[in-house]
């Protein structure tokens, strides 16, 4: 089932960020939400997630029970290990801890995080923490993944890993929305939503 954004307008007060934004986001595709800083990319993601009611318009998310974010500012449990973070969603899916840990390690390997698996969350760099929480979001096998500025703190190699993971998740039938102004990421996306078109 697609994610339907219909006639969305949002205004925090000083004037609308976007007006009458309509888009159908199909499963299996990766959407780049484009626009400069402060243009309302994060706001649109929050509206799409259902965490922020829009000023006008509606969001249809039927058949998408699992919605996950990969935030720009990752927030975890400072003293728990990186591995524990990725293991948790697998435990909530009913997977026993030993298997969950193996699966978590495999996921972390895809993001080049194996070497920090047993490090405390607070000891990770910004980029490592961001990738870790992206790996954790993927562990939940989301139907809708919202990614906010994934490459702001990443080197090109990591950026490429991250971009690959979006297509891989979309390949399982999920909808992926990526707020970004990184040209490399935009190129890796299958579709574009430019906020400048909805002023």
């Amino acid at each position, binding site marked *: 089932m697609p994610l339907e954004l219909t006639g969305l307008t949002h205004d925090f007060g000083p004037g609308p960020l976007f007006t009458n934004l309509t888009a159908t986001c199909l499963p299996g595709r990766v959407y780049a939400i484009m626009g400069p800083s402060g243009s309302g990319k994060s706001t649109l993601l929050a509206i799409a997630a259902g965490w922020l009611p829009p000023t006008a318009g509606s969001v249809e998310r039927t058949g998408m029970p699992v919605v996950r974010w990969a935030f720009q500012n990752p*927030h975890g449990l400072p003293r*728990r290990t990186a591995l524990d973070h990725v293991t*948790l969603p697998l435990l909530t899916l009913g997977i026993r801890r030993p298997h969950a840990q193996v699966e978590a390690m495999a996921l972390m390997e895809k993001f080049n995080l194996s070497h920090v698996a047993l490090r405390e969350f607070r000891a990770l760099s910004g980029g490592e923490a961001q990738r870790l929480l992206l790996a954790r979001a993927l562990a939940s096998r989301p139907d809708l993944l919202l990614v906010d500025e994934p490459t702001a703190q990443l080197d090109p190699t990591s950026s490429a890993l991250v971009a690959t993971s979006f297509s891989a998740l979309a390949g399982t*039938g999920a909808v992926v929305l990526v707020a970004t102004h990184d040209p490399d990421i935009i190129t890796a996306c299958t579709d574009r939503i430019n906020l400048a078109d909805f002023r």
Partner: protein
Amino acid sequence: MRTPQPAANHHMSPRDIVSEAWRNLTTGTTGAAIWAPCLALIITMLASLDIGAIGQLVTTAHQWNQAGASLLTVTAPGHVDGVLCDALGTLPSIRAAGAIRAHPAEVRAVTTPSSSIPVHAVTTGFVGARAGAQALLPTQTVGADPGIFAGPEVVDRYTLTPGGTLGVTLSGTFTQAHIAGTYVYPADGRQSGLAYAIVAPEPPGPHSAPFDQCWVDAPKSDPNHTATLLRSTVIPSAGPQELPAEVTQVNASLGTELDLNAFNHRPTRLIPIAAGVAAFAVGWWITRRRRLEMASSLHAGMDRASLVTQTAIETGIWAAMACMIAYPLITLSIHTLPAQDIAPLTTRTGLYILQGFTFTLAGALLAASTIKEKHLFNYFKDR
């Protein structure tokens, strides 16, 4: 095509919840090493303040009882029913009761024949000579031999001990009086007369003569109620005029009434409420401090029930640690108090500990129930 998804609100297994809680405790995620001592300190300080104040009340009440201030008497010479008076001692509101009458016998110790010792006949309740009865005056006895009881000044003068004897002349005839016991009657402001005296318990009987006074000890009762009971032991006179039946306090030097409501009026009476609020606030605040990481766990797929259970385990453990620190500290502070009776204070301590534990837990659980995934979004919006 997508593979079928597990239910979004899948519950974690109890084993995983326990293991998550345990990891949070051992990694320092819960901050137990800091918060348990803090909570212990708060509980100890508040509880000690209140228990100190209660200790003072206990001491005051103890001194009051010790000084015989809770003893009331009715005086109606030759008109007090001894059996009735003794029976008052069996009422729940009366701790002990006994009647007394001046004895005409002339008793002189053989060693000091020039001075006589006042003698009083008493009912068995007066000195607790009846099995199971509480003595009106604290007594010291050996066994349950019949005999006389000596007052403190007689004991001092003739160096008497319970079970011993005193050589006396009774109306001119020499006899060895058996000392069944001694009684306590200090000169602390109470009616004099019994300090230098001996009392002889008289077994109750239908033909026993009436007494002069009935004494009762009712430390926890309304004095007016006690006075009414006392007056009921006075045998009405045959004549037309009403008998004067005066009710007096054996020791009025500490005031006529112990404030039985002192506990409810104590200056620290609101501390139990304050301690409950404080414990709740600590539990709430310490859990709220972790709202972002908890929101993060919720967003990782942890369901609400699992999060609340995990919080209950974590908080239960560190709050219990706090209680294990606070309990001996409060107990220690109790032992620095001059209170003779610490039973009510240890009960209070238990209540404070129990309250501290449950209110901390309640605060933490309420906080855990109100944390939302959306906090993550608000956070980065407010950055």
